[in-house]
């Protein structure tokens, strides 16, 4: 027994010393590596991933030796033998790469898949639809049938060609997949509703003509359909890959095959994700040979990582505007700031179904009480534009005529309240989402102050995210702040979501009452004449926001990015998403 005791004691001491030594040794060697930080660190980190990528690429090359793939494969290898690694960060890991199963993890799909069409962001900030893997298309006169011709040189990253059958499989899966969340914009395709209702298992409106030709028929005309095709929703997958991968599609890098400029090679949960160039990409090879995403849960860490040169593009959405102002709006970073209009409207929703906000005068008073310019300047550093309606500045549907009518006027608001018989105010809950962004939280706190100033006894109630969503859905949320960023550049995207039907306005806790207006919103979509259609949308906007004061329109913002010295040029996503295609980045 005595022996054991001694041995144990020895072991204990031993392990302790070992621990101490390990600690010291580690710190010593660390000091040295860290000296030569930028390259060594990146290189060390990337080495395994790069190997893997190379291996895979090599394997594919042998598999598809004779076809013309050598050309693009050769191009994919950096000419100077030097890897250009683009290092990006995000605040939390993505959930999946399968766009049919997510509505917000678009970064990877944008990079690894192609869409039939793309939206191009011009230098002047305007956008246009351009062909992508669709070489050409035509629309029938009645606006119902869209005929497409695919490029014949599009290959997936496993070397197989992309054909009409892949497009068909993708669109069918959108509706047949049990937990698909991407049906909102595409149910207009003929036969889609039948699949969702369980009455069909193939998509009636999709007709394959040959490998490169197909047609899509709609239920009724929809002018925004081409824009929809350019959204991440309509990423094109590989039929063979979908069948083979099953539930692993979008979850396992090797089983997620796309035709985009990059392919995904490695994904460590909560840690990192690696993209490398797709050797079979049909276009010019991307500038960056690899893209490395890393998760930075703490914004301050993300910021420090950028300043330490460990990240190449800093998404300023993660930072408070005052930090952006004090740190990056300086001479040192003058040329490094990239700003893009975010096609999204911030708004304070007012629930017309709840007393006393069913009185339009009360709603108007709330509109006038909110110091919108103050919020824009203080919380967002003034980087945006006030919006007085529904459609964000810079989007299709936005008109100058509908702007400028709403002024900050607390005195006028008080008078209106008095007129409505609420001279002494009333109790009002502002509902906050605990997982919402800190900017929204700040907006809410200012709005609370603004409403208190005109005599409304407003208090903030915070809910966890799912309770918040549930309450909003139940139509009982009195007042809250939100933002809608366009999925596709068409007024129908935003106005339909909020005012398309009684169900929609209830689900958004707006409880907009005018059913005639809602019917007009729904039918506006099918107006074939473009001028007439946009006129109708402008009229609806005026009616809903200016006359009926359904919400307090706030502003559309700019999205600010800071780029590192290693980046020559960077084109963000056209709608100002934080997610973007790394193909738009040119490395030095």
């Amino acid at each position: 027994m005595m022996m054991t005791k001694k041995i144990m004691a020895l072991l204990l001491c031993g392990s302790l010393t070992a621990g101490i030594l390990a600690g010291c040794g580690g710190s010593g060697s660390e000091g040295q590596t860290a000296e030569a930080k930028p390259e060594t660190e990146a290189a060390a980190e990337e080495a395994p991933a790069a190997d893997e990528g190379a291996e895979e690429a090599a394997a594919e090359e042998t598999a598809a030796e004779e076809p013309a793939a050598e050309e693009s494969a050769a191009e994919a290898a950096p000419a100077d033998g030097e890897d250009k690694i683009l290092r990006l960060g995000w605040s939390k890991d993505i959930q999946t790469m399968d766009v049919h199963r997510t509505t917000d993890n678009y970064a990877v799909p944008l990079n690894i898949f192609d869409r039939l069409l793309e939206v191009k962001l011009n230098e002047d900030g305007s956008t246009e639809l351009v062909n992508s893997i669709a070489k050409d298309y035509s629309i029938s006169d009645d606006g119902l049938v869209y005929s497409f011709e695919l490029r014949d040189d599009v290959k997936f990253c496993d070397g197989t060609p992309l054909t009409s059958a892949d497009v068909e499989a993708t669109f069918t899966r959108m509706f047949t997949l049990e937990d698909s969340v991407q049906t909102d914009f595409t149910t207009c395709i003929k036969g889609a509703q039948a699949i969702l209702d369980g009455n069909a298992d193939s998509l009636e409106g999709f007709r394959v003509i040959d490998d490169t030709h197909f047609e899509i028929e709609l239920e009724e005309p929809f002018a925004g359909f081409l824009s929809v095709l350019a959204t991440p929703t309509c990423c094109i997958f590989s039929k063979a890959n979908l069948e083979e991968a099953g539930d692993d599609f979008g979850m396992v890098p090797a089983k997620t095959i796309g035709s985009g400029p990059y392919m995904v090679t490695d994904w460590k949960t909560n840690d990192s994700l690696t993209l490398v160039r797709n050797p079979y990409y049909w276009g010019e090879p991307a500038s960056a040979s690899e893209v490395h995403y890393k998760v930075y849960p703490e914004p301050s860490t993300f910021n420090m990582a950028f300043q330490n040169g460990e990240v190449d593009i800093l998404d300023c959405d993660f930072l408070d505007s005052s930090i952006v102002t004090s740190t990056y709006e300086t001479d040192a970073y003058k040329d490094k700031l990239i700003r893009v209009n975010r096609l999204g409207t911030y708004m304070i929703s007012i629930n017309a179904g709840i007393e006393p906000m069913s009185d339009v005068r009360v709603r108007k008073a709330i509109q006038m009480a909110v110091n919108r310019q103050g919020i824009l300047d203080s919380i967002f550093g003034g980087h945006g534009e006030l919006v007085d309606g529904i459609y964000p500045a810079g989007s299709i549907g936005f008109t100058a005529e509908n702007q400028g009518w709403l002024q900050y006027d607390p005195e006028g608001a008080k008078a209106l309240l008095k007129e409505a018989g609420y001279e002494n105010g009333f109790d009002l809950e502002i509902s906050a989402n605990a997982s919402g962004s800190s900017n929204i939280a700040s907006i809410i706190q200012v709005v609370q102050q603004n409403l208190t100033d005109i005599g409304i006894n407003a208090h903030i109630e915070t809910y966890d995210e799912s309770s918040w969503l549930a309450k909003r859905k139940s139509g009982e949320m009195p007042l809250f702040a939100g933002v809608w960023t366009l999925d596709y550049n068409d007024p129908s995207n935003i106005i339909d979501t909020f005012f398309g039907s009684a169900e929609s306005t209830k689900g958004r806790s707006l409880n907009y009452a005018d059913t005639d207006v809602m019917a007009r919103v729904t039918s506006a979509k099918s107006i074939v004449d473009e001028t007439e259609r946009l006129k109708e949308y402008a009229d609806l906007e005026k009616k809903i926001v200016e006359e009926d004061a359904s919400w307090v329109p706030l502003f559309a913002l700019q999205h600010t990015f800071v780029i590192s010295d290693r980046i020559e040029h960077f084109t963000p996503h056209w709608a100002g998403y934080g997610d973007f295609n790394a193909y738009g980045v040119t490395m030095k």
Partner: protein
Amino acid sequence: MKAAVKRLVSMIPVLIGVMLLTFIMLRVVPGDPVSIMLGEHYSQAKIDRLTRAMNLDKPMWEQFVSYMLGAFRGDLGVSYMMNKPVTGLIAEAFPQTFRLALMAAAIAWAVGLIAGITAAVKQNKLPDHLFMGFSLAGVSVPIFMSALFLQYFFSYRLKILPLTSDGSAASLILPAIALGWNSAGSVARMTRSSLIETLQADYIDTARAKGLLRPAVIFGHALKNALLPVVTMMALQISSLMSGAVITESVFSVPGIGRLATQAIQNRDMPLLQGTILFTTILVILGNLAADLLYSVIDPRIGDE
């Protein structure tokens, strides 16, 4: 031996209790993870479809039975948010947390023992106050604060150590210090009081009377016994290290268990939260058991208490 068996047996109800409690704690609430998954785009039909697909429409007891059966097979369900099996996620994350906790424990023990012994030997003198102040500060400073400041000074200002975890041992030093300092405080306080008490014992007087020198008395006789209660602390440390890991992992971007738990809460990802809690708790129980066994090996006197 008898004690060990007894201890093992008493673990079983605790384990079952932990499972039951975790289950009840989280399932009593009719959560709606579906609306979170759908985010901005939803309709009732879609919500119903997803609810069915995820078995949430089954009665509670059925969900519970299938969860229990699954858990024994090592199947903890599928994370709503990550769309991956919880067991796999934990298996992927645990090595990170384990390495971090191990390094933190090493730091805690090294610093804590040295501080505790010095303080005890120099009781009520300057080193005592100095060391105990230092360790008490470790217990009192919120971990997030020490983590943020360590990161700011060593990684950002001085650029000596990596800012975030990249899998290397070096990148774990700062999080381990932040985590270890906190535990070092407890170890030091414990060592000090235990050693002071031992030094007052009769056999120490005897040893002194024999003419042994002070260091020989302290290291040869007193320390061995004084450390006994400190050993049991090892088990308690596992629990507090796991709690602390939640913070340090978030600040230093370590993809470990604590991060999974935080995410699970933020996204109301019930299976993931359940899994991480169950896992860490079992870890603590096993740690307790190990400490108990170790204790009875070192000190046979407490065999069959």
